[in-house]
């Protein structure tokens, strides 16, 4: 009984403490899959964002209209499931005191859940979900005053870079391999669209699919080989990509493999081993301490979470920068009111110095006919990365300037 009473006391204390503090804090929600298959991305993103927020809180919080307010984080695990994502969105949007949301890894979750934020006008920065549909759904619907922003190199950009890379390497007959998820299929569609844009220069010899969990890609690769593919353009996540790389090696099928940014995740690089060497992918961030801008972030992350390598560096860096941008927007808005934050995100006055770049007005006023208005990344601040002996390096060393750079002017 005594134990029970003390537990009750703890419970009451937590209830009261949160409500008492509520007035002096900015509440930000972070959502994403923190368990299950896409958890490495979700957790890295969350931890990156939390790192940024911890730094802000250490410096006394955000100056909101002259008052120093600390940031309080509400975490919700959407498990990468659409239904759960919708409920999380409903929960957050009905909490009433949430200023903004950062998160979402799975495009499907964005498609089911984001409408609840839009209804309430709550600002959300999507990162690192790159599927095109999560923004195009709003342009198709013609939504005005959209509070959804994206902070990730969306698949349109990535697909374009991948196709351009293939052309640059002289591979005009390509095979497209993709996983059977929303991510893979929409990546496939983006690739096909970009290849179309090249006006018949590139020929797709075969399109093959693989399921999550498939470890034997012999069938797909044999077909690609038989069709005479000169390059493999691939869209998928993690271990399956590694299976393709090892399968290629096994069949002695030596053609370049180019794909989405997920090829930089450790679950691909470590698993593929030597077979992964030479694989190319667009990158917004590389976990390379020789890049001066990235070094403090990388070191802080390693220290804070006791790791020697970030599970998904791109997600972590994007989460970090997104949180910084959000904090700046809240400061500039001078209130925790979502519509104010949306407006100031669309018109950021001060360049935010992030670990990826100096972000100067990354977004502009939403125009349903141009999704780019709410997309932060451009072709210019994305580089091609290459796997080399277990690390991602720049495919083109001259690109280093992009990652160092202080660019991004509109």
């Amino acid at each position, binding site marked *: 009984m005594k134990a029970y009473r003390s537990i009750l006391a*703890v419970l009451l204390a937590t209830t009261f403490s949160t409500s008492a503090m509520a007035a002096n804090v900015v509440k930000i929600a972070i959502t994403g899959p*923190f368990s299950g298959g896409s958890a490495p991305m979700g957790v890295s993103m969350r931890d990156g964002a939390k790192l940024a927020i911890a730094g802000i809180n250490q410096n006394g919080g955000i100056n909101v209209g002259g008052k120093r307010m600390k940031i309080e984080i509400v975490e919700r695990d959407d498990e990468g499931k659409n239904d759960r994502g919708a409920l999380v969105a409903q929960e957050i949007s*009905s909490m009433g005191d949430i200023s903004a949301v950062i998160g979402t890894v799975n495009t*499907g979750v964005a*498609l089911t859940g984001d409408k609840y934020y839009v209804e309430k006008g709550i600002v959300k920065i999507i990162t690192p979900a790159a599927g095109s549909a999560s923004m195009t759904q709003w342009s198709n619907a013609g939504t005005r005053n959209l509070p959804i922003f994206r902070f990730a190199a969306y698949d349109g950009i990535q697909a374009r870079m991948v196709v351009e890379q293939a052309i640059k390497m002289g591979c005009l007959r390509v095979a497209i391999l993709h996983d*059977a*998820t929303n991510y893979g299929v929409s990546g496939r569609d983006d690739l096909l669209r970009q290849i179309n844009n090249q006006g018949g220069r590139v020929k797709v010899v075969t399109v093959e699919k693989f399921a999550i969990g498939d470890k034997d890609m012999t069938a797909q690769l044999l077909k690609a080989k038989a069709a005479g593919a000169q390059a493999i353009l691939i869209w998928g996540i993690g271990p399956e990509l590694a299976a393709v790389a090892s399968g290629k090696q096994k069949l002695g099928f030596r053609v370049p493999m180019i794909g989405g940014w997920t090829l930089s995740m450790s679950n691909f690089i470590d698993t593929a081993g030597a077979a992964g060497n030479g694989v190319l992918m667009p990158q917004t961030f590389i976990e390379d301490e020789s890049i001066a801008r990235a070094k403090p972030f990388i070191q802080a992350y390693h220290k804070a979470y006791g790791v020697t390598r970030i599970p998904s560096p791109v997600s972590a860096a994007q989460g970090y920068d997104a949180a910084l941008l959000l904090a700046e927007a809240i400061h500039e808005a001078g209130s925790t009111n979502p519509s104010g934050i949306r407006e100031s995100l669309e018109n950021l006055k001060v360049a935010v110095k992030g670990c990826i770049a100096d972000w100067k007005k990354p977004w502009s006023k939403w125009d349903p006919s141009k999704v780019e208005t709410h997309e932060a990344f451009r072709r210019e601040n994305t580089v091609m990365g290459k796997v080399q002996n277990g690390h991602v390096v720049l495919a083109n060393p001259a690109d280093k300037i992009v990652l160092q750079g202080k660019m991004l002017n509109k």
Partner: protein
Amino acid sequence: MFAGISLGLRENTVERIVRTAIFIGLAALPALWQGQYALGLLTLMAVYGVLLIGLDTTVGYLGQINLAQAALFALGAYGTALAIGAGASLPLALAAGIAGALLPGAALALPALRLEGPQFALSTLSFATLSIIVLNECESVTNGALGLSISRPLLFSLPLDATSFYWLCLALLFVAWEASKTLFRSRFGLAIEALRDSPTATDALGIGALRHKVLAFAWGSALAGLAGGLHTMNFGYLQPAAFGYDLMVMLLLGVVFGGRRSQWGAFLGAAVIAMLPNLLSNRTLFSFLVSFGCVLTVVPPIRALLSHKVPLFRQAAPAIAMTLAVTLVFFIPNVEEWRKGIFALFLFAVVVGFPNGIAGAVTATLRQFIHFTPLPILPATGGISSSKKTEGIALRLSDLCKSFGGMRAVDNVTLDIGQGETLGLIGPNGSGKTTLVNLISGLYTPDSGSVEIAGKRPVCGSLMSAFSAGAARTFQNLQPFHGLTALESILVCQQGGGESEAMGWLLAVGLEGKARIRCSGMSYGDLRFLEIARALSTRPRLLMLDEPAAGMSKPDIARLIELIGSIKRAGVPILLIEHHQNVVAELCDRVAVMDGGRLIALGTPNQIRRDPKVIEAYLGADDTERDNMEARQC
């Protein structure tokens, strides 16, 4: 221990009042608990409620692990989504959803329901995987992995906002609940209940297992389709991957958690799986629930300790699990990461602590405290009468043989029973009597030889076919329908006719006073009489009684003799296997004696009593006949 409160109402009425009150409360809830989230949870709960009531038809009522419900849910959802895409109105779209799940569900049921246990589970699992593959691959129709987005159609030109959509879901849940309840209270439901307890007995009594199972599965599928339709309209976005193994497991857990074979259980399970994982995101609530659960679970082991007994592992296990959960909640910095694990501990405690689910535990407790008015008992009509008298032969066996392994259980048996005749079949244990009855009633297929019942030749090895020829039987090892009352056991067997006729049969065997008692609570002797009443209620042309007096007390045996006598007088031909010689002597016109699978004697009871072969078979060999044995050993 407790006197209990008498409400002066029937249990059914009370249940209905409570249920209606809860639904009214739920409908009014959005006014109190405002916000989209609350509505979202409540809507999800209503949708899952419909889905789980559907799942409960197989998992609860049929007692089979069904892993296809999530896929049927998906098919329903896609049916509705495609119909909406084609411009269908809301009712039409829901109908499309129901059809989308019902048709494949019925197609699966036909082969799958011949199976049981792991085999059934596997074929439903295969179906589920297959459905998801089809949804994923037919991109031109379903848009594949990219998913379908739809907007909610109008209901009779009325736009539905979140609240009215919730009301719609709630109303449909109420309808599904009521319909399921009515269905499972009907003869159909009784049959389902009966065949779960003993599929052999239901087939032998002509109830027909497969037909009922397929219908029940189809009903479950239809509800899955309906739920799928609602789900589509609720979230507005569909993706095949969302209906995979995880959802399946969650649904299964929901049904067991809530309590099987009860719409209340399905509802509570739905509330738990819709609400709990989401509500548990709230740390305060989470800690509270887990601590409260922990306190609840330590009661049984403490109680055991107080009465100076070492608590059983079964009693202690939930407490251990909950203590572990509490430890995790209070000592792990990031509870969100351990959410699944803590949820698992919570479930473990409930499944072990309440094997019948929450609904089962609550009902049992309530029945202890509250006395409900029992259902009225209707006056009896009918009873044993000589309705069917045909000329000729009731049973003809020619050269029947059956062996198991190296053993000839029935060896070349040829036997006739005339109309109105009572034939006794006796013989020592293991002489093949029951095997013979199993051959006649179609449980076993004979190796050779033929069976003819009342002039018809049933298909060999088919219980149903032997039944339609007119054979009805009782079982040596009782096959009662544990979940049914005595009255229901008769109702489910009789071909038409109402409760009063069923009462007539009970009256005939002297069980009229126990009409409302469940078989699981009846004594051995009563169950023997009930089996006879069950067989009689099918109005058989051949009645086979397999050791009806086994385990009966002396007065019961006297009653039995009287009963069989009256059946005999009504002209029903009887094959009676019995050990009690006085029963046989008193009732049988002729007696057949089996030994080692062979028929060794046939004659009147008096002839048989004096037959030296029979006496030897019963009393065993004399050691004096050595020569015989030595001849064999050479």
